[in-house]
């Protein structure tokens, strides 16, 4: 086969798959602005009778405003804690040469292969005992724990590749480990911290399992839980159903368009180096 034929096949295959990817997302967004009748009559064209009804309904009566704020609080606080305590631990795991730190490193990264969901039965009892059930505070410690394996894995590897002379020089200058960590290391960690943040942000923002297990009342619902309840409610009203799905999808889609490289790097952080 000639080189030209090869590249034509490449374009055809990739274009067909791109259409298969984009078509559902396209119909999702355009149809959410159409009245029900128009969705059924003309599902693929631009909206002729443009409407915001689905969005207004989801936001006001569906209380998406609450779900958004809750998810934002949970995601932000969890991320801050993951980056903070994860980078401290990674610094020690990278710089402390001892059998104990080797053991702890393996203990942390073992969590990459064992999903925390399998411990849910016991977490239900723990969260109940702590009096956190049916609040957004039940989610944060679990997400922070869930973030530790990837944080220690990525950050420890990154710190180990920083030049050792730099740390030695700081030590000779009499800097304490705390100063070396906070003044020297953390600013250099920024790209690795971004990777860890994106990985966890997507997991936490989209998580449905733990809200489903722990949360009932409206004031504590997250976006994912809200979507599942509202979608059930609006099942026969496609304008509303599609508006709910769009509301959940659009924030991350916009971020992805702006930061696609970082997103791809972040989501595959556990498997691809660099």
């Amino acid at each position, binding site marked *: 086969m000639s080189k030209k034929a090869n*590249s034509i096949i490449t374009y055809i*295959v*990739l274009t067909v*798959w*791109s259409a298969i*990817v984009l*078509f*559902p*997302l396209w*119909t*999702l967004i355009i149809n959410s602005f159409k009245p029900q009748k128009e969705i059924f009559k003309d*599902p*693929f064209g631009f909206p002729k009778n443009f409407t915001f009804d689905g969005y207004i309904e989801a936001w006001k009566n569906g209380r998406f405003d609450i779900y958004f704020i809750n998810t934002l609080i949970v995601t932000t606080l969890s991320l801050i804690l993951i980056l903070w305590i*994860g980078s*401290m*631990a990674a*610094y020690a795991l990278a710089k*402390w040469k001892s059998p*104990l*730190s080797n053991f702890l490193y393996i203990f942390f990264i073992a*969590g990459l*292969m064992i*999903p*925390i*969901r*399998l*411990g*849910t*039965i*016991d*977490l*239900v*009892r723990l969260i109940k005992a702590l009096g956190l059930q049916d609040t957004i505070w039940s989610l944060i*410690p*679990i997400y*922070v*724990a*869930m973030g*530790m394996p990837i*944080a*220690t894995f990525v950050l420890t590897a990154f710190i180990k590749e920083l030049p050792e002379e730099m740390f030695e020089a700081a030590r000779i200058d009499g800097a304490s*480990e705390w100063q070396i960590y906070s003044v020297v290391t953390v600013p250099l960690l920024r790209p690795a911290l971004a990777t860890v943040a994106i990985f966890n942000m997507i997991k936490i923002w*989209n998580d*449905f*399992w733990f809200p489903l297990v722990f949360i009932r009342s409206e004031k504590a619902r997250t*976006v994912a839980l809200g*979507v*599942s309840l509202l*979608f059930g409610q609006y099942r026969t009203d*496609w304008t509303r159903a599609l508006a709910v799905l769009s509301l*959940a*999808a659009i924030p991350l*889609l916009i*971020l*992805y368009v702006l930061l*696609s490289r970082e997103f*791809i790097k972040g989501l595959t952080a556990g*498997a691809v*180096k*660099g």
Partner: protein
Amino acid sequence: MSQANDSQKRKAGVFDVKDRRQTTWIFFLLPALLVYLIFMAIPLFDSLRLSLYTGKGYTPTTFVGFQNYIDLFTNPLWRERFFGAVKNTTIFFMIHMLVQNTLGLLFANLLSPNFKGRELFRTIIFTPATLSVLVVGFLWTLILNPNWGAINKILISVGLKQFALPWLGREGLALPIISLTSAWQWVGMPTVMFLAGLMNVPEELLEAARIDGASEWEIFWKIKFPLLKPVVGIVSILTFVDNFNAFDVVYAMAGAKGEPGYSTDLLATLFYRTGIAGEHPVGIPNMGMGAAIAGVTFFILMAGVLLWLYLSRRGAEDV
């Protein structure tokens, strides 16, 4: 921990600089370690312990040894659902291996030479992976809706009415369709991983083979694929762990009971119904049995991970 610290103190001499640093290290590690222990490691192991107990609702306090496991494997009340879920989860995983990872390998291979639009294609292929599984599942239930969904409308409009099926309503069809939806969402992951692996294949090697007259097909199987073996291992184990733990997509497309007729019931949906939600109409969770289902899942995952570690170690020795 303090014991290990003490013995090291004695070895290193009393209270020298090194020793003070060791206390510092513990201080650095402590917050992460506590959160990880309390909210992940201990619940995982304690859940295994609870699988040996039984009791109503939130108080599994009666020790029954391995009775929950024996019931799962032999009691007709549990056996059918349990083996059904194991079988469905295996099929779900196999479809991902076959479709998602083969497509990923194909796309990575097409994307590896430098050409115009490559970045854009990579970005598009990866897009669904950033969406919530739940949103993707719900979106596809609308697209696959037998009366109003886009798929059947297209099929009917091109004269293929006989293929306009109730995609999610028929046993034997729903599980493959749900698996394909999930593969559609995640195909970007193996694509990016294989692409990273292909970037490490030295260009001179491929050039030399081309000069010798090797076809692209031969180059792929004889040069690229053997060098990709470690990546194949990582992609496989990640697919395995993710899919033996899948829940959201079935919950969204087939409900917690894995409709129709439990034909899409996975280990995770069975776990949810048994240990957390409680079966209708009682609605009281059987936590001990739920923990046992999680326990079986845990051992299946462990076996897979150990097999992968063994194979990849042996593979590394061969090179």
